[in-house]
């Protein structure tokens, strides 16, 4: 579930964008568009509970947040990172599920290397494996295409499509259009002159 009603994020008492309203049903994929500095990242962080300066209201249940920073511990292997996220969610992931997820993102060969040895794009792929294993229904993604190669972008599109088909919700801040059927665009507009 994802609902915004007249949500405005503030930063240093400055209104970042015009009030946003949104009602997302299961299976919706929403692209968050707006120029640099419009407040896309801040909006996603607000929904994830990491930014508390806002007006209006929102409801965002069982979400998964993927920011600019990957959220992978560089001293751990991809497998250990994935298992740790399972521990955090309170689900015990068995080896088969882990192997399947890591194979799905084509990272099986690097599954036991420390994450500090992996490239940015490879780490992004590990993050995608984490989304697959998560039980969260709403995915909040910030620039998901960053540092992915052509195959990786293709894979990302497939995963997002699959998630929406299963009844999940995707809200992604992106400059590159997502190639998902029935995706909607939510445009962030700068705050008007009358904004206090």
């Amino acid at each position: 579930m994802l609902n915004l009603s007249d949500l405005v994020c503030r930063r240093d008492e400055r209104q970042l964008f015009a009030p946003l309203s949104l009602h997302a049903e299961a299976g919706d994929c929403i692209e968050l568009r707006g120029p640099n500095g419009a407040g896309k990242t801040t909006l996603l962080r607000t929904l994830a509970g990491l930014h508390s300066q806002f007006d209006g209201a929102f409801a965002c249940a069982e979400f998964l947040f993927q920011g600019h920073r990957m959220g992978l511990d560089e001293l751990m292997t991809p497998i250990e990172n994935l298992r740790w996220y399972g521990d955090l969610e309170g689900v015990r992931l068995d080896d088969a599920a882990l192997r399947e997820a890591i194979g799905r993102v084509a990272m099986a060969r690097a599954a036991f290397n420390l994450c500090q040895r992996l490239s940015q794009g490879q780490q992004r792929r590990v993050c995608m494996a984490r989304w697959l294993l998560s039980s969260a229904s709403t995915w909040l993604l910030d620039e998901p295409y960053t540092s992915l190669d052509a195959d990786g972008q293709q894979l990302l599109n497939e995963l997002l499509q699959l998630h929406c088909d299963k009844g999940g919700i995707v809200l992604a801040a992106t400059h590159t259009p997502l190639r998902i059927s029935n995706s909607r665009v939510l445009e962030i507009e700068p705050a008007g002159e009358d904004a206090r």
Partner: protein
Amino acid sequence: MNLTGLLSREWRALVRNRGAVLNPMAFLFLAVMLFAVGSPVSDNETARYGGAMLWLIVLLTNMLSLDSLFRRDFDNGVLEQVLSTAQAPFMVVLIRVLVQWLGTGLLITLLAPLLCLLLGLPSEAIFTSMLALLLGTPALSLLGAVGAAMTVGFSRGGILLGLLVLPLFLPVLVFGASAINQAVLHMDATAPLAWLAFISMLALSVGPLAATLGLKISLQLQ
């Protein structure tokens, strides 16, 4: 949340990042050694202020290791994941502090006999010193975590961390040093030891929650 899984990750991180434990320990021994070399050998005076010296060096050592307590997780984004999705983020913080304590407080406690001898403390004071360190160092880690959480957003938070945390360490220094002094004078040290235990309990009930709040504030500033 699966606590053993979370604990095993912290333990693995500690083993893989040994420098975070070994460097503060090297500092500890260097500081004690410098004190031993610099102090006059002619008299037995060192026994009188050895306790205070030991605690002072332990405070500084703990502060050194606190700077890296949340740094890595903050930079790689694990922390924002913990605070945005975990049901009980303070448990993750508590586990992190516990493992930090294993690598500083508990290790120092085990090495205390050696430190006491280097500082010229009489052998009767060794047991009390160990007990005082065991009871007092959890408070250092728990209170220090609050300071570490609030300064983690600054790339050079080191000196600020010291200014925030050292005043909080004051009661531990007072009672810790007095426990050792009592033992040196062959007096009963139960009272200061009980105070140390009390401070640690207080820090345990306040520290993790305060540190979690501090981390939230640090992440807000991003």
